[in-house]
């Protein structure tokens, strides 16, 4: 029977399945345990879950990239590498959490279950091949995180953060859905690769014989929204994309809404308003998770969407292309994120604004990726940046969690005074995280920034060669990015100054939690090691992009013979199902 689930389907979604299974196990363990007993061991159970999921993703590395689950999911380099990323972030979050939750009198197993479910959603989201699965996974991820943000019920701040995050997130979901609907309306399919192929047909029309195209389509009698019969003549019509797309405001509206909703999750200016409240109001481990895993998942899926569906030249660089959108978002995010971070007195809020700035840097790379002839391999710099960013951010939030004692939040810069001497290892770790965030060698952050800006400069070079208009603007973006990262040094340095060069105002005692120490050490060591030996990770990120299945390569699709057409028809059929 055609609808059978094959073993490869199960195997390829193994990371997702493992996480969900562990989530359920954790839930059951939670309810069958007496009240008042410590739940800390669930942190280890969850960490093992993440390790198992990561291990299964790693086992799948050898599997050839392909569509699975009736073309609803991809198993490819990209999904596997990003799954590793989410698993790492999730595992470290689980490790820094238990003592913090105990201190806040919120030691319940649901926390870990929600983290596991949410991470499962992320993995599903970045491997989605279809808007339907994509949206479902997005919701699975988001709903779990809404609950997490409001997890500490006794805290009004956290409840407020959760509430805001929920409202804004639901709002973003609605926008996403609207965008998806519009794109579907314009193309007749929800399959990402099919959308990409359809939308590039017009551009290819110069190199393809329209008659051939029509004959192939009519032979099969494929019907999708993109093709239809002229009611008066009965002729098969192909919507004329390419030059014709300029006349399709609905399509562009849809694409814009989808992109806006995606950058909403990553917190790009001007869609950043919720972010400082949510990151700083939520419990520190949740803040860590939101800032790292959620953002990484959102960025990764944005890469996937752009690379598969919206990578046609006209869509990127046309008068209504998305490159100009990401350009301005990048510029604004870097500016507002860095400048407002300077004015903060709370470390958590500073980290939140700095996270907006990081979003800006990554958007620079995405802009570069889409600029000119378009080079998807430049997206590898984003993947690498995400790794560096995740370790730095989870680590920094983890240290704040580590320092938090019952009902006493470590928030202000002055709370960190002199801690570098009382807790030398902690001081070194925090210094590493700050240096990495500031992009100073030999930390991971330096290589990451280097990669991102290099990507933009390469795109600039290619743009100049191809005679693209406005290539200089891209260079200007790089220059301003580097300048803003210089501004950023100020507030990262402030943390180090407080750690080592200020007298303690108040007694802050670390919670001395074993698992948290493990989690923070992992981040610190990773930050340093990636900075010193970035080679393997760079290769991995390159692989993630180059082995992304279904990605829309190049500008023009060459249709010499019938083969790609049949591929298209298959996708159209399945898309219209």
């Amino acid at each position, binding site marked *: 029977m055609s609808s059978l689930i094959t073993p490869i389907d199960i195997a390829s979604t193994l990371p997702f399945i493992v996480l969900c299974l562990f989530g359920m196990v954790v839930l059951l363990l939670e309810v069958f345990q007496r009240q008042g007993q410590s739940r800390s061991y669930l942190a280890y159970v969850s960490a093992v879950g993440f390790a198992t999921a990561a291990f299964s993703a790693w086992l799948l590395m050898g599997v050839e990239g392909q569509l699975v689950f009736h073309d609803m999911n991809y198993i490819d380099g990209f999904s596997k590498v990003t799954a590793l990323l989410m698993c790492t972030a999730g595992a470290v979050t689980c490790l820094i959490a238990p003592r913090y939750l105990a201190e806040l009198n919120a030691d319940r197993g649901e926390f870990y279950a929600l983290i596991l479910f949410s991470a499962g959603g992320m993995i599903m989201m970045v491997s989605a091949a279809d808007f339907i699965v994509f949206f479902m996974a997005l919701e699975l991820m988001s709903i779990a995180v809404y609950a997490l943000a409001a997890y500490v019920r006794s805290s009004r701040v956290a409840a407020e953060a959760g509430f*805001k995050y929920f409202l804004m997130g639901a709002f973003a979901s609605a926008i996403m859905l609207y965008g998806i609907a519009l794109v579907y309306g314009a193309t007749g399919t929800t399959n990402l690769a099919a959308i990409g192929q359809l939308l590039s047909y017009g551009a290819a029309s110069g190199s393809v014989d329209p008659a051939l195209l029509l004959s192939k389509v009519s032979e099969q009698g494929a019907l999708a929204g993109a093709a239809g019969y002229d009611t008066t003549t009965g002729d098969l019509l192909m919507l004329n994309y390419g030059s014709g797309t300029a006349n399709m405001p609905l399509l562009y*509206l849809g694409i*814009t809404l989808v992109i806006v909703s995606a950058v909403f999750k990553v917190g790009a200016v001007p869609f950043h308003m919720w972010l400082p409240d949510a990151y700083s109001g939520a419990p520190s481990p949740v803040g860590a998770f939101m800032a790292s895993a959620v953002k990484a998942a959102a960025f990764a899926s944005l890469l996937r969407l752009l690379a598969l569906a919206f990578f046609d030249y006209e869509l990127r660089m046309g008068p209504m292309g998305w490159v100009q959108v990401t350009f301005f978002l990048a510029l604004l995010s870097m500016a*507002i994120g860095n400048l407002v971070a300077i004015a903060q007195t709370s470390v958590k809020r500073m980290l939140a604004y700095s996270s907006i700035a990081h979003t800006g840097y990554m958007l620079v790379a995405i802009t570069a990726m889409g600029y000119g002839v378009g080079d998807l391999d430049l997206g590898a710099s984003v993947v690498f940046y995400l790794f560096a960013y995740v370790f730095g951010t989870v680590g920094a939030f983890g240290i704040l969690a580590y320092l938090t004692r019952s009902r006493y939040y470590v928030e202000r810069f002055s709370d960190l005074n002199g801690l570098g001497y009382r807790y030398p290892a902690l001081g070194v770790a925090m210094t590493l995280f700050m240096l990495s965030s500031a992009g100073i*060698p030999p930390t991971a952050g330096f290589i990451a920034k280097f990669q991102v800006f290099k990507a933009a400069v*390469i795109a*600039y070079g290619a743009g100049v060669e191809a005679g693209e208009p406005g290539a200089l603007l891209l260079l200007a973006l790089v220059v301003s990015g580097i300048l803003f990262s*210089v501004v950023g040094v100020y507030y990262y340095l402030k943390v180090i100054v407080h750690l080592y060069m200020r007298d303690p105002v108040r007694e802050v005692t670390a919670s001395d939690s074993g698992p948290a120490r493990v989690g923070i050490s992992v981040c610190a060591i990773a930050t340093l090691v990636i900075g010193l*030996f970035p080679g393997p990770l760079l290769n991995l990120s390159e692989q993630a992009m180059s082995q992304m299945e279904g990605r829309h390569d190049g500008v023009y699709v060459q249709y010499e013979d019938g083969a790609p057409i049949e591929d298209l028809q298959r996708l159209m059929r399945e898309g219209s199902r």
Partner: protein
Amino acid sequence: MQDIPIYEFTLLGWIALLPLLGAIFNGILGARLPRALVSTVAAGAMGVAFILSIVAVWTLFQGRFEGADGHTLYGALYHNVFTWFEVGSLRVDFELLLDPLSAVMILIITGVGFLIHVYSIGYMEGDRSWWRFFTYLNFFVFAMLMLVLGDNLVVLFLGWEGVGVASYLLIGFWYEDDEKASAGKKAFIVNRVGDFAVLLALFLLVIYAGSLSVVELREWASTLSPAQVTALGGVLTAICILLFIGCTGKSAQIPLFVWLPDAMAGPTPVSALIHAATMVTAGVYLIARLNFLFVLSPTAMTLIAVIGGLTAFFAATIGVVQNDIKKVLAYSTVSQLGFMFLAVGVGSFFAGVFHLMTHAFFKALLFLGAGSVIHGMHHEQDIRRMGGLKDYMPITRWTFLVGCLAIAGFPLFSGFFSKDEILWYTLANVHLLGGVNLSWFLWFLALGTAFLTAFYMFRLYFLTFEGECRADEKTRSHIHESPLAMTLPLVVLAVLAGFGGFVGIPPVLGNALGGLPNVMHDWLYQVIGPGEAFFAYRFEGYGMAWMSMAAATASGIGGIALAWLFYGKPSDVPGAMAEKAAAVHRILSNKYYVDEFYAATVGRGVTLLGRVCHRLVDELLIDTLLVNGTARLMGFLGSVLRVVQNGQVQRYVAFVFLGIAIILYLVLR
């Protein structure tokens, strides 16, 4: 040009690794170990690194052979530690490379560094964070060695940032003092401004040259045809100027020199090692290292020469009126660095590196001497309350005098040779700016600087060591000569500062003395020869060279004489002068108000921008303008929480709508 053979040499890795190991050892265990062990490890690591450096340089020397053009070449030693990263066509090896230029540098770094470590054992004796000091100091040496040994510019940049961090930590070493901590921060941030330019230059090099390895870049530059150079002209100039901006940050040139005088907040050995002998010369090193690139852009070269010359002169004028012993030396460092940039800017890379070396000797000597004085006077730094110290501290006095003579360019002392080279090449090479030859202008600027240098250095010397002691009774009773650990390095450095110049006898003298070779120039030829070949003498014969040397000597001795007239004996001339030219004096002692200017513009600007963004965008635009209803609620500060809960989400949503509307307008218009 001829291919330069490269030999594998594993020992290089150890030279860099030893200080790092020392830093790690002391950083982790230092707090719990006895002082003697901490200092032995730190200084020992340096000593062994110095010995290894000598072995490495000796090995390099052994490999010499005669090149095609008759010059002696030495090849290079390399050691690939590991491949750092490889992206597409760009491969970054963590590769260490020792050629004659980096050989000079590592000898200075490990040699002078070793002496300063020994000196620090005496100087830092009473400090409670003794282990921290040595940890930082060792770490600095490691980073500096990375900087000079790195074959790849990314590795060089790693060291470049590393010395910045170390310098920041050491300037703010006594962080209990707010002013000192902020001096460290200032240094770091000013340096970062320069670093961004370097990073940009690296990107441009990746695009146009496809590599960041110095060896490969050199090959690339040498294969460029004149037509290609013309075509790439703008890019090359941009790269060179961007690199130079980085140098102005690291090496304290106009306009980014403001951090160096403040950096004197650090312990004096730090000033000697980092802010005189090694780190600040990194800019000069970078330009000498990439000379093949810079010579392709006459515009950038002229700019470097002009900035160098101006910095030299202006810093010297400020130095004349400073009263803090370390501040005088700081401005003198800025000024001398200006000299070096002048040298490399006019195309005499040899003179730049040569002056770098002699400067490392005499300026380290002077700083350590000053440290000895400060130590002996119990942290008194104001020269107006010193005087007559020659009886109390004879060793310090004599060595300091040697240093002063060297920096003043007194004949046959080391500074004399290097300064003369710079002046001569400034005059002899042609540097056009908009068709105007700047040679004479720069030469007079340098000559004036030489005069001022001699003047303020001997003002310092006379006020400190000669005449009556102006310290109060209590201090005077405690003045003592420093311990052996401090005086020994002084003596060694004094010997080097005194005789170090003979390795670079200028051709004019060498010729007159019967064909004495310029050892230093021959040694460096392999690296800088091709670059220097781009410039040709304007003058025939040695006539002008004699003239230049005579003028330099005269101005040096003139400065000394004037200082003696003013300060060598009791006199009220300086006071009267200061009164007469009160306005000038005020401007000079306020360092031309550059700090105030930066604070008022850049510093306040950025902070203001941050606040304005916060106020304008987050508060005013969203709170007040967008949603009037919530804006009114903002007035009720008492119910802030309520406002937050009721209002903000709506406001956020309104803002999002506005954002989408603007984007849609942009996209669909």
